[in-house]
């Protein structure tokens, strides 16, 4: 019984953990660390904005965003920065980064096509 209880708790913990933190851990690659960060990017202009901004972030070697999956793959130098700093930076551009919420001021300044409601149906705005 005790073992079963423990197992259930463990399973629940894993599930909960897995759910709240879909966040992927950095892995080592040639030239530094690589991390995949889920963003709220919706179009090619969002891709542009995030890749542009990260290109100038200290320690970032490359950043490529895949629009369909919204995942930006960042290679960085772990001596100069870390995954959290990069996530934070993405929020400053106006996008969610994994569990971090976007900066609302930056979001307001995004072009229309990058807003949440820009791609929902083809309704006529009034």
């Amino acid at each position: 019984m005790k073992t079963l209880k423990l197992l259930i708790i463990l399973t629940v913990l894993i599930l909960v953990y897995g759910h709240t933190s879909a966040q992927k851990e950095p892995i080592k690659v040639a030239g530094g660390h690589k991390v995949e960060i889920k963003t709220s990017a919706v179009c090619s202009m969002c891709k542009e904005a995030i890749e542009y901004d990260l290109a100038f972030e200290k320690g970032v070697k490359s950043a490529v965003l895949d629009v369909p999956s919204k995942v930006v793959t960042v290679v960085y130098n772990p001596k100069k920065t870390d995954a959290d700093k990069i996530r934070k930076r993405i929020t400053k551009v106006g996008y969610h980064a994994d569990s971090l919420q976007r900066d609302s001021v930056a979001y307001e300044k995004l072009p229309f096509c990058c807003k949440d409601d820009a791609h929902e149906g083809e309704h006529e705005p009034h």
Partner: protein
Amino acid sequence: MKFKLFVFIISFAFGSNGFGQSVNGVVVDQELEPLIGATILELGTRNGSVTDINGRFQLTLRTKINKLVISFTGFKTDTIAANLTEPMRITLSENVSELGEVVVTSSPTFMDQLESKHVEIITEAELNKAACCNLSESFETNASVDVSYTDAVSGAKTIRMLGLDGRYVQINRENTPHIRGLIGRYGLGYIPGTWIQSIDVGKGSGSIVNGYESMTGQLNVELKKPETSEALYLNGYVNSFGRMEANANHARDLSDKWSTAFLFHGDYFSNEIDNNNDGFLDLPKSRQFNLMNRYKFMGDRLRNQIGIQVMRDEKAGGQLGYGFGDDFQNSTPYGFMNNTTRVEVFGKTGLLFPQKPYKGWGFIYSGSYTDINAGFGRNEYLGTEKTGYVNAIYQNILSNSFHQYKAGASFLIDDFEEVYADSAFSRQEVVPGVYYEYSYLPGEKFSLILGGRIDFHNLYGNLYSPRLHTRYQLSDKTSLRLAAGRGYRVANPIIESSNILVSSRQLVVQEAPEPEISWNLGGSLVTNLKLGHEDLNLVFDYFYTNFENQLIYDMDQSSDNLFIYNLNGDSYAHSFQVEAKYALNQFLEVKAAYKFYDVRTTIAGRLQEVSFVSRDRFFLNASYATKYDKWKADITVHWYGQKRLPDTGDKPVELQRQAESPDYFHINAQVSRGYRWGSIYLGSENLLGFTQDDPIIDANNPFGEDFDASIVWGPIVGRMVYAGVRYKIKRANN
């Protein structure tokens, strides 16, 4: 009606590879109905196309950005990645006059986009490769425009195209004739580099819509726009000689339809640089104040623009010790002075027909007042010019969009009053003109533009300028363009010879100048050859200019005089150029060009090679840029072949010059580092420090009879190092 679109996202060189490749596809609305006349533009450039009656388009990409901006009145503008592998279907959704990054101006230029003419576009990214100062330095990385110093005193630079003086190039600012008349010689210095959005370089005769003055080429300079340029752009520049510059641009929306821009430039240089120890300043002292403010209204049916530019430029050169405001007529040191004040008011109005994108009215107008107070040694020059210009353009189609036309009328009034030494000249030109330009655009394979204009000149009678441009796509990757046309201009002998007046030569105008008239014939072949993973872009062009009349500035007959007279005999220029461009990888691009000129004119009854023109020239530019221009490095190598020099055989032997100049190299380089807020740059002009020995004849006796500072074929100042910073605040998107 989208007459013309400008994309105002700063052109960053993105690191992929669409360059020279073509995209095609169809633009439809949400009901999948094709959209006719939708505009497809390559992001960051003015390279574009318009959809045909089936909504189809094709476009050859010129940059590596690989992004297209699709727009159509009444629809949301969309920016998307170009698909190079298969035809694209682009759906635009209806609504909302969002201004976004794409903006319509009132000037109709379908023609640019359909590219019947040989036009090269210098973008802002290209301009930033040689971060200097003004329009005369903006052609550093362009092989088609040559830049050289005019003399050893004024520091002025002049351009040449097709081997001929820049006065035969029509220089427009946003499709309004701009650098002409009394600012024809120094005017390139009056357009600051940081104001420039892009420059179109058209070789051969240009469109008749903008007038009759494009004889060897047409430059169109687009400035930063109220509706799209950065909210704030600050630039500071300093060089090793001590020249300082400050530039500031500001643009903002005043309402959802009105926007404004302020462009400011100031520069200051007062150090005495005499590296060749001839007692003369290698560069004149100079200071300039330049301000432009303009307003734009963007309605659905009406586009309006009005602006004002105020400029004051002062130069003081000559012997050491001569300063701003000194009295050159009595000063001990030889003085050169040029103080120019210019005020210009300009505007445009466009009337659009949203349901008929091919139809529109455009009105362009400007009025300017120019005042020049100059001195060359003991001689004073005073000049004023008052100009008024109006151009009305109507554009429509004949039955379908295969047949388009523009028709219009222009009116120019130009009033000159000049005094030089003891002579006074004045003239008033009143030139009404009408024109018609027909375009046959049956598809991507072939296009033809046939135009003509008649101007009724009050002084010189009726003048005709026919023009023809045609383009034929030989294959997917090869196109052929041919152009022919007649152009003319009225010379301003004193201003145009002001570079020769820094000498002891007496100015002798032997007869009343007649208009300069020339025919230009030529063409280009553009092809892309697969070489490894990338295309090798090759451009061959050949142009022939033949003068019916030309004003001859004869420095050869006598070294004591400058004779000015009308051409009596032959005068022509053959120009051949081959240019190759290749991207070695996504970061590094190399461009090389070779040019051959054969320019001859009848001087003193004999057909002679025109002086100061290199028969051969070579040009090489290597350009390295990481993604988003975080790091950028550029090096440009120019090789100038020998040039014929004016005959100095009648001077004392020790003061004679050789008949030809030696060949030489000129290298410029620049490195820049980009940040989110802007960039910093460090560069050098004339890296090798090559200079012309002893550029001034008899520099010790500037008031003597042998003095001549006009025989200049190479750089006067040595190596110059400069550094600068650019700070930008982007415009909010909404």
